[in-house]
């Protein structure tokens, strides 16, 4: 009886308190956690896809939080589908940012991302600070 009763009690608790409610995430966190639907919802609600947002520790970096743009989060999370969705929904990449992203892709390699970023030559990354390096620890 005991295991079933435990599940029933947990069930009552889950019904009242809610089991695994949806987390409040920033646009960059949504992208970093493969949550393209949430990212699209936030953009449709008016969130600027070109602004940097906080990403909590453990998602893009192991032990410190970072502040990155959604596009940078997509490159860091190796999510070509997310990058494509962002670009189709208002995200832009200027020349300087493109260099940073291509250098970041060298660290977080992904052929889909590479294809979306264009250029097949290896970028010159001398002096380039990666988005996760900019973190305020």
């Amino acid at each position, binding site marked *: 009886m*005991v*295991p*079933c009763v435990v599940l*029933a009690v947990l*069930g009552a608790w889950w019904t009242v308190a809610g089991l*695994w409610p949806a987390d409040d995430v920033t646009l960059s966190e949504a992208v970093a956690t493969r*949550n393209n639907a*949430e990212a*699209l919802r936030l953009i449709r609600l008016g969130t600027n896809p070109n602004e940097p947002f906080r990403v909590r520790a453990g998602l893009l970096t192991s032990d410190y939080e970072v502040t990155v743009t959604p596009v940078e989060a997509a490159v860091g999370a190796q999510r070509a589908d997310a990058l494509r969705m962002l670009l189709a929904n208002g995200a832009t990449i200027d020349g300087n940012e493109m260099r940073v992203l291509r250098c970041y892709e060298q660290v977080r390699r992904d052929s889909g991302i590479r294809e979306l970023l264009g250029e097949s030559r290896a970028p010159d990354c001398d002096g380039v600070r990666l988005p996760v390096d900019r973190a305020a620890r």
Partner: protein
Amino acid sequence: MKHQAIAWLLAALITLPLAGSLFQLPIQVSDSLEAIVISTKYATASQLLEDSLRFSPTTFRPLRYLQTRWLLDATGAADLTYNAVFRGVHVLLLVLLVVLFVLAVRVRGQTDLAAFAVALPILIGIHTFVAMLQEAFPVNHYAEVGVCVLAVLVLAQRPPRWFFAPLICLLLALALSVIESGAMVWVMVICCAAAGLRGITRTTVATTTALLAGYFVLRHALDIASPGIGGHGSGFGATFYSSEELAQRFGAHPLGLIAYNVAGGLASLLLSEPRQGVYSLAIAWRDGVVHPILAINLVSSLVTTALLVWYGVRHLRAGRASWSDRNRLFVAASGVMVVNAVLTAAYIKDEIISPGGLCYAVAAFIACASLLETLPRRALVASVAIAALLTLDAALWTFRAAGVHYVLRYAAFKTRNDWVEVLREDKRTDWPQDPRELAVTQRIRDEALVRRVASPSFMPRWADRYWVE
């Protein structure tokens, strides 16, 4: 009465949050969107019904589109969201399954209640149940079949009444008109009759058999063939093959694969292995890595199946005439499991054997109750050992049942993300040209996107290894 009330309470407390997890699943893109779009395009339901008979050369599912149409109409009439209506029906089917299970096992005392506490987690935790819950076309036809199968089992245990035959015919007609697995309702009728359950009379057997024969005649008249080897992907050994690969590999000599599939279907019910025809055990042997979920599923199923074998050997040797009502129920449930495995001849899918999964839980309840009844007559050491084994088994099944929440939340996350790929901003040329199709697609997509669901990234990290295969 008190024990029955506690059984209902346990069932309610466990089902309620499960209904919540199920309701979070958005309407699926695959299997559901196309049916919804087609159903909206027709001016009349009768025209839709007429045309839907010829939508597929291998399936005969006239009510699939008609049910969708009814729900779309209900959405408009009640001013609700598509998600609320379609997922509401899904939840209703889950509740009906659990209610019918409680009615089928009929808890009568303390021992039954203890057995029920083992069997209910088996009902929910078995892999065929969660596979069934995730289906939608966009109405969950496998759950509809499950409800009809359990309803027959409930009626079969009651004294026969004049309305049983027409009611069971109605259940069979409903099940057959939504999916081919609906034939399991007839199988249940025959198994109950063969086992000697009193609610199934000769009239019921004759009328349902005539109905099934009529169904096959109609299929033949409409030139609808049954899917053969290669109609669907399926596994063999440690590998999953696509439909083309299966046809190429086994198409010329299919008997070996058919025997493998039928044996695999039965093994899947009894041992939770293979899954979709693929033996995780073979993969574990090849890779030298055993995932915890494999061990949990295998041990829980092995202990329960051993219990069923013990019950069968101990109680059924005496012959049909001396069987008790419980013996007959056990035989009917076991018969359905065996015949259900035959339906996997062409390919194995967990959903196909879901009626067998429901019967597995019913049979487990009977066997468990019987074993518990023997405890006072056994030596203390044996009693303690049996009680410990049953508690371990119950704990493993309960763990599996709790995992259904995780699997459903995971599916909700994936399904919601699937909608991002529909009506893509960068592929506007692919958008439907028909304004009605575009409007309904946009509305369902919008509904899916605004329904926030938990991300697996914020759920327990260990859950994947213990609950997801």
